[in-house]
């Protein structure tokens, strides 16, 4: 069954997309903000990792915590320094502000690192795999990515469900004025939401940097895949985002199998099909 291997590869790829999508989902859920710079943040994380790797000559995995912290702080500052005000000005203005940020990041990276593709070398793990059968081979790294993705989503779920701040996130997502009446400082909360989102996308960015190459203009692709995963899965559902990522991943791998280079296109077409026939996504949140 040669398709089995493809489907498995697709599922594992979906895990990676879910990492990108989770942060997006969180930010939209809490703040109703569509962040057009999200993919570029992921690329930025990969470059930060690259800088650390070049300076300290370590395996990219060791840079993860550092990159996550840097990105989280950066996210908090951008949110409180600009995006909170952008959101005050209006949803249109907020989107446009994030678009401005996206272009700024892309071009800063271009100036800083040139347009050449770069990669993160994680060593042996990139090439080793488990052979399940004649046709089915699972790479260690994709498996690690998927496992990480599930852990992150699980952690996020726990955070939102069981912690004081997580509840504050959900309350603010439901009704931000009522949340203020509870003593929740929504400016700080939005900053924290963005910080979380960027910490998660940092993981995604580094992993994708290991898995494949990246360049300053790679951000928009990541963004598009993340959005497609969120919309396919259904707005408001965290695990739906994982499923959305998987559907997208499988579509892309199968597409490439049909004809090399068609993967992304097939992914887009699946997305558009869902948009056409089931716009609320596969697991839309209960609408009250």
């Amino acid at each position, binding site marked *: 069954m040669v398709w089995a291997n493809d489907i498995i590869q697709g599922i594992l790829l979906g895990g990676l997309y879910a990492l990108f999508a989770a942060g997006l989902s969180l930010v939209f859920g809490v703040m109703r903000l569509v962040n057009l710079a999200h993919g570029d943040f992921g690329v930025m994380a990969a470059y930060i990792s690259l800088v650390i790797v070049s300076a300290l000559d370590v395996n990219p995995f060791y840079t993860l915590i550092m990159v996550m912290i840097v990105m989280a702080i950066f996210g908090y500052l951008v949110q409180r320094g600009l995006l909170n005000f952008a959101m005050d000005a209006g949803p249109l203005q907020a989107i446009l502000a994030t678009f401005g940020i996206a272009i700024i990041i892309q071009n800063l990276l271009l100036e800083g690192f040139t347009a050449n593709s770069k990669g993160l070398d994680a060593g042996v793990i990139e090439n080793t795999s488990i052979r399940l059968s004649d046709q089915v081979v699972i790479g260690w790294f994709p498996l690690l990515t998927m496992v990480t993705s599930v852990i992150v989503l699980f952690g996020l779920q726990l955070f939102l469900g069981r912690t*004081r701040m997580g509840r504050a996130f959900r309350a603010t*997502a439901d009704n931000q*004025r*009522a949340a*203020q009446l*509870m003593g929740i400082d*929504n400016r700080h909360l939005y900053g924290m939401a963005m910080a979380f989102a960027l910490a998660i996308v940092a993981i995604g960015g580094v992993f994708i940097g290991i898995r494949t190459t990246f360049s300053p203009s790679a951000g928009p692709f990541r963004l598009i895949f993340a959005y497609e995963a969120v919309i396919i899965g259904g707005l408001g559902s965290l695990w739906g985002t994982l499923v959305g990522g998987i559907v997208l991943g499988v579509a892309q791998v199968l597409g490439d199998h049909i004809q090399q280079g068609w993967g992304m296109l097939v992914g887009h077409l699946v997305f558009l099909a869902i948009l056409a026939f089931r716009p609320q996504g596969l697991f839309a949140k209960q609408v*009250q």
Partner: protein
Amino acid sequence: MSLLELDDISTGYGRFQALFNVNLRIEEGETHAVIGANGAGKSTLLRTICGLIRTDAGKVRFDGQSVGHLPPNKRVGLGISYVPEGRWVFPSLTVAENLMVGAHSRRTGLWSMDKVYELFPLLSRLRQRQAFSLSGGEQQALAIGRGLMSNPRLLLLDEVSLGLAPVVVEKIYEAMPAIVKSGTTVLLVEQDVGQAMKFADRVTCMLEGRQALEGSPSEISSEEIFAAYFGV
């Protein structure tokens, strides 16, 4: 020094002015009702106190401290809790979670989740239910309970009887004595004049954004209320 002092408050929505030179003093431990016709400015008054609306002119002083410049979330920390008109429960959160969020400000005091369940036994049976599935009366109880979770010194209740059957309203008001006994000052806006007069120590009647009448229920005659309410 009164717990709450409103000095010459004028405020509104954009170009529409809703309150004109309102002066009010609420003492600690008092129960005070604000009555008046629709659009008289009752809710605007409460929203100005809790911070959802900023004053254009005049001062809001709580426990001697000027709070007019503070956003709503900071005022909660000082001890002002507003239970909104329309309840505003968090629909996707359970009853228990709604109460937990109510305690976000971490103010200590008499009120806890157990105490709230004691106050409103009907909520106790609904702990794990998502708030959107509750009936109007249950949501109102939840909103009040949630408002108490911050152990406020001043509880602002905005139209708790709105949209509820009289029987349900009775049950809500049955909980009031316990709230008052715990030392909380209560300022409520009430459509139902009879209920307001029964419950409150003092009553203010608003008319078109201005105070038309103020006094204790025992002092005021129904003719005076009628005149103040309708502006005749």
